[in-house]
Structures are given as C-alpha cells and as structure tokens.
C-alpha cells in the first residue's frame, strides 16, 4: 500500500474521530462480555466475529496513526500498520456486523461497535474495496435523486397499475385514485420500497383510515448508510425530506424498513414534519378507531421479531405488539425480546451481498429463538429482516411462514 493511499485512509479516519469515536477506540477492558451478545459469534464461534474482535481490528490501526504509544512502540502499543491484509480484515469486520448494537447494550462501557464500523466502512471506501453491490445501489439512489424528472412518469404509470389490486382488497374505488402521488396538501407522505407489497398494503390501510396521503417517488431504504458513505447517506435521505417539504405534509411515514426509519427519524436533526414508522401509524389508527381489524382472526401460534433498527435503535416496541394482540389469539414472545432481542443477521446491507452461507450460520440463534416459541407464523416489520428470516427458514428447513406486519393488517381489515 503506497503512502498516498495510507494518507487517504488516515484522513478519512480523522474525519470520523469525534469524541464518542475516540472514547470507543480508547476504552475497552476486553472483559469479553460482548462475545455472547453477537449473533454472528453464536453461529460461528471465532474471535474475529466478536464485537471486541471487530473493534480491535480498527483499534490497532488507530493506535498506529493516532496514538504516540502505537506510533513509537508499535509492539507494546499493539499497533498495526495499514496494508492490504489489514484492510481485508477491516472489510471482514465491517461487513460481518449488522450494526444491530446488541453488544452495546451489554457492554459495561456502552461501546458502540456499530458506530465504530462506520469508520471501518469509510476506510474501505478510501481503499476502494467497499462492496461493489452497495456502491452500485448507493450511486443509483443518488442518480435517481438527481434525475427524478426523467423517471417519474414511468414509475407513476406502473403505480397506476396497482390501483386495481388496491381496489380489490378495499372493495371500492376512488375518482381521485387510491394511490395518490405528487399530492400537494396531503397530510402524509409515505415512503415505500421498490416492491409492490410495500405500496399495496399501506395503500389499503391509508384508504381504509381515510388518510390524506401521497406516495413518495423515492424508496425509503438508504444504501448510502449501508455503504458507510456519510455524504451519500445525507443526499439519499434528503431526497425524501425535500419532497415532504415541497408537498407541505405534516408527517412522513416510513415503510417497513428499519434503517430508513432510524435515519429519517433519529439522524437528520429537527425537521418541519413528524417522522413515523408505518407500524406506529397503524397502531394510532387502531386506537383512534380509524381502522378496525378482525379481532382474533389468527389462531395459529404467532411470534414477532423486533427489527433492531426499529426496536433497540428506534424505540418502537409496544406498537407492533398491540396490533398483533388484536389480530392473534396465540401470541408467543421470543426470549429475549424488545431491546435484548437477537439480530436476525440481515441488517447493515448484508442481505445485498453474496454471503448466503454466512447469513444462514449467523442466523442460528434466530432459528433457535423462533423454534423455542413453537410459532408457525413469524411477523416482522422490516424488509431486510423478512429477507433474512426467509433465508434462515430455507437454510434450516423450518416449518414457519414469515409475514410483514402491514400484510397481516391489510389482509384482516374490517371494511
């Protein structure tokens, strides 16, 4: 690795050396409590798949370039020079971590490995070894933001074709259309994903509640965050913020995507509108009597998987449980749950990578948790989690069905 590349990477590290980052990099007693917090280590018990193992990969490089002990006494300071091998280890650390932050909850010092890995991901961008899949996805999302005028009509036309599905589910039509877009004066802007399910089911629910809403032209998911590129993350998030401001909405509602929710709700500072998850909105509609569901419609055993970014990192725990509680007669909690729930292994952009064997292995604890409940239906509220739970299901041959919460509600509305 040449000096110029080392300079690029260390400059990027320096750009992320906030006070919390320095605290996390300097402070670790290696007590090892985090070992048993990580779903990856549970499935693949190797040191490199522990939170402290990942953090130490980064810390050794940090000490070499940012601490006198590592610079002048590298052996004593356990420092490591940047080279291709070191960067391979940084990549393995960064992209074996989903950023679920379960280790942080269990760390006596609250060391946030997910935050540390944002520095690791930035170093990979500087080294030009970030996963190509995520670079492509982030660049496409940025391009979509820059040239949305070129793509609007094509998207609008296909969304129009979904009207008939919404009509069938809802049992009625509307002269103004059931999936409004560019709807100035709407109260709600809803940001979905590329798949029809993320548009149709919420559309049924919004219409049933009599909501004044508009579908966003942009997908909620933020590939800039998965890639670890702060500028792209901000640009991708701001596409939706700008659209919300332009339409003058009071509330931005985020689809079942944990990362999108956490970024739009918790990482953009103060916005001139409220940001909610579709899960919170459904719960609100139910409590206000704006929608009704078929009480106790589902009698088979059901469990709920808390998506890490919606639950532990987003604070949405009780809303999904209240919704499921109205619909299901045999709800069974996983153990542990809520802020201590195990990550399924699909976050952090990992579902986009060519790593299915790794994800099946790292999903072992989730398999064990689900199996212990005896549930036949696993409900969750995050696209990445649904993908990963499906991978776990087929990887271990589990006899369960995985469903989105919105799908469960839309299929069981009293209309």
């Amino acid at each position, binding site marked *: 690795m040449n000096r110029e590349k080392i300079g690029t990477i260390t400059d990027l590290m320096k750009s992320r050396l906030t006070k919390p980052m320095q605290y996390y990099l300097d402070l670790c007693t290696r007590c090892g409590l985090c070992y048993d917090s990580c779903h990856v280590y549970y499935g693949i018990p190797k040191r490199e798949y522990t939170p402290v193992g990942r953090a130490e990969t980064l810390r050794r490089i940090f000490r070499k370039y940012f601490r006198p002990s590592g610079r002048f006494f590298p052996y004593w300071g356990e420092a490591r020079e940047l080279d291709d091998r070191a960067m391979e280890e940084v990549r393995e650390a960064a992209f074996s971590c989903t950023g679920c932050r379960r280790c942080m909850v269990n760390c006596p010092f609250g060391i946030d490995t997910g935050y540390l890995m944002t520095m690791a991901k930035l170093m990979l961008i500087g080294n030009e070894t970030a996963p190509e899949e995520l670079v492509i996805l982030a660049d*496409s999302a*940025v*391009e*979509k933001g820059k*040239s*949305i005028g070129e*793509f609007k009509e094509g998207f609008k036309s296909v969304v129009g074709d979904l009207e008939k599905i919404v009509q069938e589910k809802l049992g009625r039509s509307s002269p103004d259309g059931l999936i409004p877009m560019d709807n100035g004066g709407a109260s709600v802007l809803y940001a979905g994903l*590329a798949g029809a399910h993320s548009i149709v089911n919420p559309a049924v629910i919004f219409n049933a509640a009599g909501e004044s809403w508009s579908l966003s032209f942009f*997908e909620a998911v933020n590939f800039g965050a998965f890639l670890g590129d702060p500028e792209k993350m901000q640009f991708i998030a701001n596409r939706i913020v700008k659209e919300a401001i332009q339409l003058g909405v009071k509330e931005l509602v985020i689809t079942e995507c944990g990362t999108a929710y956490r970024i739009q709700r918790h990482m953009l500072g103060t916005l001139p509108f409220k940001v909610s998850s579709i899960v919170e909105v459904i719960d609100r509609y139910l409590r206000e009597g704006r929608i009704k569901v078929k009480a106790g419609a589902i009698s088979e055993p059901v469990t709920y998987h808390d998506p890490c970014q919606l639950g532990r990192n987003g604070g949405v725990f009780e809303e999904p449980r209240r919704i499921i509680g109205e619909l299901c007669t045999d709800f069974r909690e996983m153990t542990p749950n809520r802020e201590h729930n195990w990550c399924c292994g699909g976050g952090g952009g990992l*579902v986009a990578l060519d790593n299915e064997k790794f994800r099946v292995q790292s999903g072992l604890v989730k398999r064990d948790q689900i199996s212990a409940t005896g549930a036949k239906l696993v409900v969750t509220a995050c696209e990445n989690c649904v993908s990963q739970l499906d991978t776990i299901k087929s990887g271990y041959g589990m006899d369960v069905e995985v469903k989105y919460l919105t799908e469960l509600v839309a299929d069981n509305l009293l209309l």
Partner: protein
Amino acid sequence: MSEEIKVDATMDLKGLKCPLPIVRVSKKVKDEMQVGQVLVAETTDPGAHADFPAWAKTSGNEIVKVEKGDVSKFYIKKLK
C-alpha cells in the same frame, strides 16, 4: 415496424425483495455479458421502473426497451 431485439440472456427477478433485483442484474451484466449483448430482466417491482434506468445511467449501460405489464421486461444492452 419495430426492429426485433436479439436477446442473449433472460433473468427472472419476479418476487425478489429489495435490493436484490438491481444487485443481480448488475452482477450478471458485469460478469457474464459481453459488450453489445442484451439481457432481459423480468420483474414485478414497480420501483424497477425508476431504479433500473437510474442504475443504467450510473453504470453506463442502456435500457433499449421496456415492456410494461404485471411482469415488466427490461431489455438492457451492455455498453461497456
């Protein structure tokens, strides 16, 4: 009369969850297609109608034809 496009490969992306359609198409075009060849990507995602053109623009490839339907078909020509 429109000129018939010679198709070199077809990919079934129906029902795949976010973000796999773009990931799979991108990998296929990069690793398995020759410059000038055409891939037909079949998808049920409405979002693909904005996502695929944006991807083509950033990756320097061309969408030469789109057949819209319950299953939409994107004819993607590898340009580089």
